[in-house]
C-alpha cells in the first residue's frame, strides 16, 4: 500500500507539468501545476507515513522487458525518511515558484514546470527503487532534469557554464555508479538491492564498492573535494529549484551512501573514519568558503556543503559504531545524521526560498547591492531569520537537535573504558563547534547585509510581498520550530530508519530508542522553556519600545553618512576569511592608499572555488594543450586521411 501510494505520487508529479503545455501564461498565484504537485505531495506523504507501519511495507514488483530483473520498488523507513522532506519541499517550492517565476516575465516557464515535475518524480523513484538498474535509470533522469532546470536561463553565460559543469560532473558520478553496479552484480549475481555476503568488506571488491560509492554519491552530495559543481549550479538555478536541489537532490548522495553501507554486514572501522574525516573537511571548509561569498545564493550553496559535512560526520560515527558494535554510536550517529538530512531539507529550502524573495525584490544576487530589505519583505525576512538560526544550530530550532545528537554521540567515547576501542570521536567535537560558530558568523553577515541597514545601489525593484510567496516559507519555518521544540515528534520515525541504516540483524538485541539515548524529555523541556523566555523577552522589548522616538544611529558626529559607508559583505567577513586564507586563497588587489590626496581607485575582492579554479581548470587546460598536439594529425588533406584509413586496416589485418 505504502509503495503504491508513493509511486502514484511520482506519476502525479511527473504529469504535473503537462497542463502548462496547453495554456497561456497566468498572473502570479497558485497554478494548476502547483495544485497537482500538492496533490502528489499529499498522496506521497500518506504513503511515506504508512511505511512506518510494519504491515504496509509491500514491495511493488512488475516484470518488464528490460534486462536486469523486474521493476522492483519498495518504501522502507529509510526511504520514507528521505521522501518526507522531498514531498514537503517540492510542493512548497511549486507554490513559491508561481509568484517567483512570473509566467508573463519569463518565457521559459513551461520548461521549468515540466522539468520540475519530472525531477520530483525521478527523486521519488531514486528513493524507492530496489533494483539497481531502475535506480540507475531514475538517477540519470534526475540528473538530466536537474540540468535542464539549472540552465533555465540558458541565455546567461554563467548559467550555461554552471549547467555544463553540472552535466559533466554528474556523468562522472554516473560512471562511478556503473562500476559500482558491475561490482555488486559480480558479487551477488543479481541487480536486486540485497545484503552483500559477509567477508566481502575485507576483500578488494568490497573496498572498491564502498569507495566507488563514496566517489559517486559524494559527487552528488557535494562532499568537500567533490563539491565544485554545487555553488555555481545552485546559484544559477531559479530559487525554488535551488531549494529542491539543495534540500533534497543532494541528499540522494547521502541516501546512496547510507544504503550501500547498510548492505555490508561487517564494515571495517577505516570506512567510518574516512567518512568522518571527509565530513569534518566539508563542514569546516564549506562554511569558510561560504563566508567569502558575495553572491547570496552561492553563500547558501556553500552552506549545503557544510551541512552535508555535518551529516557525513553522523554517518561516519554510525559506521564506526557498526564496526565496533557500539549501539549508542549507531543510534546517535545515524540518528543525528538522518535527522539533519530532514532538518537541512527544511531550513535550507526555507533559506533558498527566502533568497528567491530577496532576488525578486532587489533584482540581483549580489549582497553588496542589497540592504534594508526587511522593510519591504517583513515576513520573508522573519522566515529567513528563522532559517538562519536553525542552520547555525542554535536552540530552540531543529538544527540544534540534530547537532545535539552528534555531540552526544561523539563525546560518548570519552572516559568510557568499554568504548576506548575507538577513541577518536571526540576530536570531531571542536570541528563541529567551529562549524556552528562560523555558520552563525556567516548568517549574521548575510542577514545583516541583506535585510538590515540602508539600501545600497538603486534600492528594491519590486516592493510587494504576495501571500503565496511567504506562505510556503512560513510553513517550512513552522516545521523547523516543531522539530526544534518537540523532537519526540520525529524520533519514532527515526528509530526504524536507524535500524535499516545499521542493518541490525534480528538476532542481536534491538537498538535502544533514540529518545532514550539522547534523554529527550529534559532537552525538550529546556528548549520549550528557552523559547518561552525568548518570545516573552521579545514581546517585552516591543512593549518597552512602543513609545520610543525613532532616529538614525549616532555616527560619531559625522554629518553626512551615506549607504555606501555601511559594512559590505567582504568587509564584514574580512577577518574570518583571513583566518582561512590558506584554504580560500582570496583574490584581493594589492593597491592601497599610499599618500595624502591619493587618486580614486577600484577595489574588488573575491573568493574563487579552490578545487575548481586552482586545481581542475588548470589541470584540464594543460590536458587540452597536450591533446592539441594530436591535432597536427588533422591537417585537412583528404589523400592522407585515406592513407590513415588504409594504414589502420592493414594494422588491424596483421593484429587479428
Amino acid at each position, binding site marked *: 500500500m505504502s509503495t503504491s501510494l508513493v509511486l502514484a505520487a511520482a506519476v502525479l508529479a511527473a504529469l504535473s507539468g503537462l497542463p502548462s503545455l496547453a495554456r497561456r501564461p497566468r498572473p502570479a498565484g497558485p497554478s494548476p501545476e502547483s495544485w497537482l504537485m500538492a496533490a502528489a505531495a499529499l498522496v506521497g506523504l500518506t504513503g511515506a507515513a504508512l511505511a512506518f507501519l510494519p504491515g504496509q511495507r509491500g514491495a511493488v514488483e512488475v516484470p518488464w522487458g528490460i534486462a536486469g530483473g523486474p521493476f522492483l520498488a519498495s518504501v522502507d523507513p529509510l526511504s520514507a525518511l528521505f521522501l518526507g522532506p522531498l514531498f514537503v519541499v517540492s510542493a512548497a517550492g511549486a507554490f513559491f515558484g508561481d509568484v517567483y517565476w512570473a509566467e508573463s516575465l519569463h518565457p521559459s516557464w513551461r520548461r521549468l514546470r515540466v522539468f520540475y515535475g519530472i525531477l520530483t518524480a525521478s527523486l521519488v523513484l531514486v528513493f524507492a527503487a530496489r533494483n539497481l538498474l531502475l535506480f540507475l535509470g531514475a538517477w540519470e533522469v534526475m540528473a538530466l532534469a536537474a540540468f535542464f532546470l539549472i540552465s533555465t536561463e540558458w541565455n546567461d553565460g554563467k548559467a550555461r557554464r554552471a549547467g555544463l559543469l553540472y552535466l559533466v560532473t554528474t556523468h562522472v558520478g554516473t560512471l562511478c555508479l556503473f562500476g559500482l553496479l558491475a561490482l555488486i552484480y559480480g558479487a551477488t549475481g543479481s541487480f536486486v538491492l540485497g545484503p552483500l555476503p559477509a567477508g566481502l568488506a575485507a576483500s578488494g571488491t568490497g573496498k572498491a564498492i564502498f569507495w566507488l560509492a563514496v566517489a559517486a554519491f559524494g559527487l552528488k552530495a557535494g562532499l568537500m573535494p567533490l563539491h565544485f559543481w554545487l555553488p555555481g549550479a545552485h546559484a544559477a538555478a531559479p530559487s525554488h529549484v535551488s531549494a529542491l536541489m539543495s534540500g533534497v537532490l543532494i541528499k540522494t548522495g547521502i541516501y546512496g551512501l547510507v544504503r550501500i553501507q547498510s548492505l555490508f554486514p561487517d564494515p571495517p572501522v577505516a570506512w567510518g573514519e574516512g567518512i568522518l574525516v571527509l565530513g569534518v573537511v566539508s563542514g569546516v571548509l564549506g562554511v569558510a568558503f561560504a563566508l567569502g561569498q558575495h553572491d547570496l545564493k552561492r553563500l547558501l550553496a556553500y552552506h549545503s556543503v557544510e551541512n552535508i559535512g555535518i551529516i557525513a560526520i553522523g554517518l561516519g560515527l554510525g559506521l564506526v559504531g557498526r564496526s565496533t558494535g557500539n549501539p549508542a554510536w549507531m543510534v546517535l550517529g545515524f540518528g543525528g545524521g538522518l535527522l539533519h538530512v530532514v532538518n537541512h531539507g527544511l531550513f535550507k529550502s526555507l533559506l533558498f526560498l527566502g533568497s528567491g524573495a530577496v532576488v525578486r525584490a532587489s533584482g540581483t544576487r549580489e549582497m553588496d547591492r542589497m540592504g534594508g530589505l526587511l522593510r519591504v519583505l517583513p515576513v520573508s525576512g522573519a522566515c529567513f531569520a528563522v532559517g538562519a538560526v536553525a542552520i547555525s544550530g542554535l536552540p530552540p530550532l531543529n538544527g540544534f537537535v540534530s547537532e545535539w545528537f552528534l555531540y552526544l554521540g561523539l563525546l560518548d567515547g570519552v572516559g568510557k573504558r568499554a568504548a576506548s576501542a575507538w577513541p577518536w570521536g571526540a576530536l570531531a567535537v571542536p570541528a563541529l563547534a567551529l562549524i556552528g560558530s562560523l555558520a552563525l558568523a556567516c548568517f549574521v553577515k548575510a542577514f545583516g547585509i541583506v535585510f538590515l541597514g540602508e539600501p545600497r545601489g538603486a534600492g528594491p525593484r519590486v516592493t510587494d510581498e504576495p501571500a503565496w510567496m511567504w506562505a510556503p516559507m512560513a510553513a517550512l519555518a513552522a516545521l523547523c520550530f516543531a522539530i526544534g521544540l518537540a523532537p519526540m515528534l520525529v524520533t519514532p520515525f527515526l528509530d526504524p530508519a536507524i535500524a535499516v541504516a545499521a542493518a541490525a540483524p534480528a538476532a542481536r538485541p534491538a537498538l535502544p530508542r533514540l529518545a532514550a539515548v539522547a534523554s529527550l524529555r529534559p532537552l525538550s523541556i529546556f528548549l520549550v522553556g528557552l523559547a518561552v523566555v525568548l518570545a516573552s523577552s521579545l514581546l517585552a522589548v516591543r512593549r518597552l519600545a512602543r513609545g520610543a522616538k525613532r532616529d538614525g544611529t549616532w555616527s560619531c558626529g559625522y554629518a553626512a553618512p551615506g549607504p555606501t559607508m555601511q559594512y559590505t559583505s567582504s568587509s564584514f567577513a574580512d577577518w574570518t576569511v583571513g583566518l582561512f586564507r590558506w584554504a580560500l586563497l582570496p583574490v584581493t588587489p594589492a593597491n592601497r592608499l599610499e599618500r595624502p590626496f591619493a587618486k580614486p581607485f577600484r577595489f574588488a575582492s573575491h573568493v574563487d572555488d579552490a578545487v575548481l579554479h586552482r586545481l581542475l581548470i588548470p589541470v584540464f587546460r594543460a590536458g587540452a594543450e597536450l591533446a592539441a598536439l594530436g591535432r597536427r594529425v588533422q591537417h585537412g*588533406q*583528404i*589523400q592522407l586521411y585515406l592513407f590513415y584509413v*588504409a594504414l589502420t586496416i592493414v594494422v588491424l589485418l596483421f593484429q587479428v
Partner: protein
Amino acid sequence: MTQSADLILVLIILSNFVILGSRELRVCIRTAAVQGALLSVLPLLVHREPGSRAILMALGAAVVKGLVVPGFLFQAIRHVKIRHEVEPYVGFVPSLFLCAVGSGLALLFAGSLPLAPEHAGSLLVPASLATMLSGFLVLTTRRKAITQVVGYLMLENGIFIFGLLLIEAMPFLVEAGVLLDLFAGIFIMGIVLNHIQSEFSSLDTHYLSDLKD
C-alpha cells in the same frame, strides 16, 4: 575459358598502369571506362554456364562502369573549367614504380592464400588486389577531385573482381550491392565536387584543408 579470363585480367592490370602513368585527365577517365567494360565481360567467362543472371550482371556492370560513370566524369570536366591535367603529389615514374611493386606483391600474396582449388591458378585474386592497390595509389597521390573519383572507381573494380570469386557460392546480392555502393559513392563524390567547385571555384582538394578546424 580461364585463359580468356586471364587475358582480360592482364589487360585490367595493364590499364592500372595506364591510369597511373597518364598525364591527361581524359586518358585517365577513358582508361577507367575501358577497365570497367573489360570487367563486365568477366562474369560471363568465370561462370561455367552463364545464366540470365550473369548476363544481366555483365550488362549492368558494362552500363554503369563503362558508360554512366565515365560519361558523368566527362560531363564534369566539360562543365567545370579546370586544366585537363593530372596533378600528382607523387610523380608519374615513382607512382608507376609503386604500382609495379604493388602488383608484384599482390601476385606473391595471392600465391600464399589458401584459395579454393578452382581459383588457385587463376589471376583473379592478384588482379583484384593489384587494382585495389593502384586505385588506392590514385586516391592518395592525386590532387584533383576528379582523379579521386577515378581512384574510387578503381578500388571498386578491384572489389568487383574479388567478388567474382564468390559468384557461385553467393547470390548476386553481393554484386548488386557492389554496383549500388559504387553508384552511391559516385553520387556523393559528385555532390562533393559541386560543393568544392562552388566554394573555392576550383576542384583542387588542396583547398579542403582550409576547412579543417
